[in-house]
């Protein structure tokens, strides 16, 4: 019985939460193979853990993974995808207070703007939008790092003039009212992929069957998550410890991120993001093909 070391994070990996909390629902977990779960604070440390060989598979953002490849000699395959921004669904957005004088992106000049992670995945599209509206992201605004969890508070307390919002915090803030959306990332490009699942290439090559089983379970986990919302709310509540009424307001609804029913990675969209990062000078140009494994990629049955 082999073990696979998996890194995860919160808040939007429903299929993995199902695997963690309802292993009995999966035919293989705990029987033909084992999973050793380790939770991380964000995707960047997981990239380091992958590079150091401390993890076999982990949740990744396109940017962190690409950074690992460019700077950390990491070789990895994208085997599945967790959430993306579906048109009409939720898109990470920048909010301002209702009574704020900031009406357009151009008004951000000279303001203090919060972003969850400086140099993180959202910054590429963000920079692109600023530039398109004549704001130099390096000179015209003061960028501070504000984690999603405190962004609402930071905005209400006036510590920042605008700040980015993500689920479930966005839902909570909207329920309270008093803030409004200034712009969202979907304005830069559609189908932004936020988090995906990546496995170390050497591990996949050595244990193809093991990873195959794992990806198969991710696929079926995603199916279960989408099929049984009631249970998914419970599972997510157990993991996030967020109250069900809050989850109820957005999870798997129209105002949530998009999820591919088979957890299949959207490689063209990822390629487009890599291009944006290259254009904004955050990364050299990369080809998404190197992340593609011939057979081991969701959906797997």
């Amino acid at each position: 019985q082999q073990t696979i070391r998996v890194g995860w994070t919160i808040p939007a990996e429903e299929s993995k939460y199902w695997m963690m909390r309802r292993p009995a629902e999966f035919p293989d977990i705990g029987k033909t193979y084992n999973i050793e779960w380790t939770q991380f604070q964000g995707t960047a440390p997981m990239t380091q853990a992958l590079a150091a060989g401390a993890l076999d598979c982990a949740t990744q953002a396109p940017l962190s993974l690409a950074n690992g490849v460019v700077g950390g000699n990491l070789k990895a395959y994208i085997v599945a995808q967790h959430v993306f921004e579906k048109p009409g669904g939720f898109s990470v957005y920048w909010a301002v207070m209702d009574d704020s004088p900031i009406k357009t992106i151009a008004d951000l000049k000279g303001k203090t703007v919060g972003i969850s992670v400086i140099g993180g995945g959202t910054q590429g599209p963000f920079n692109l939008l600023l530039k398109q509206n004549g704001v130099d992201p390096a000179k015209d605004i003061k960028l501070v790092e504000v984690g999603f969890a405190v962004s609402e508070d930071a905005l209400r307390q006036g510590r920042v003039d605008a700040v980015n919002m993500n689920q479930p915090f966005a839902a909570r803030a909207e329920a309270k009212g008093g803030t409004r959306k200034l712009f969202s990332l979907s304005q830069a490009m559609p189908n932004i992929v936020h988090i995906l699942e990546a496995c170390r290439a050497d591990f996949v090559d050595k244990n193809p069957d093991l990873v195959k089983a794992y990806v198969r379970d991710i696929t079926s986990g995603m199916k279960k998550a989408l099929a049984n919302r009631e249970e998914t709310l419970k599972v997510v509540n157990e993991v996030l410890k967020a109250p069900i009424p809050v989850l109820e307001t957005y999870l798997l609804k129209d105002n949530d991120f998009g999820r591919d029913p088979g957890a299949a990675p959207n490689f063209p969209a990822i390629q487009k993001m890599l291009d944006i990062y290259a254009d904004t000078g955050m990364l050299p140009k990369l080809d998404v093909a190197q992340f593609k494994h011939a057979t081991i990629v969701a959906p797997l049955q």
Partner: protein
Amino acid sequence: MMSRFLSTNILLGVAPIVLVIALWQGLVSFGVAPAVLLPPPGLVFGRLVQQLETWTFQQEIAATVVRLFAGFAIAVVLGVSIGIAAAASPAMNALVRPIVRVLAPLPKVALYPALLLLLGFGHGSKITLVTADALFPILLSTYYGASTVEQKLIWSAMAAGTPRYEILFKVVLPAAMPAILTGCRIGLVISCIVVFLAEMITSTDGLGHALVTAARTFQAVDMFVPLITISLLGLILNALLGAVRSYLLRGFPEA
């Protein structure tokens, strides 16, 4: 003779550091650690020298040092005065003791988000965090040091007409000085760690921030430069503290 003694001491002290660097180099050369995670020391020190000359890096250092010093200094003042007050007055003791028992073991980083909102993203929140973490080791050492001051020293001073509150400054403080300085040394190291950690969590400048930016883009060499800098900073500050110590304790048998 004295100088020879001194130089053997310095040699002894440098030896293990050289060994560590050699081990580091060995780990890299023999491929035990990939260069992307652990760059060779030569590269790191080269980059350090190069960086030290740049204005931006100097500013990062300055930001860190300001927070470090401010936080540490406040911690020393608070820790020493509260510690001595608690040792001297039963009323203060009854008040301080339980509060310290509760507050000391709290993981202060968990309060950091609240501090950020309260004090903003600038120096204030970081200095407060440093103070909160460095305070208790200093306070505890001071308290124990002050409560074991030899009775007859206090008696002698009282008999010479020293008012009670002055006894605190004229006898208890100097007599507890060895213990206080031990606490300060621990507090200093903790300050170094915490200021760096705070800058890593949320910041726009400082050595910790420099590290995080480098780490996110996997620039291993740039990641190690701030690490080496903070470690050198710790070494220098400790040497300064050592000098202060041997000056203040010159009368004590152990100095």
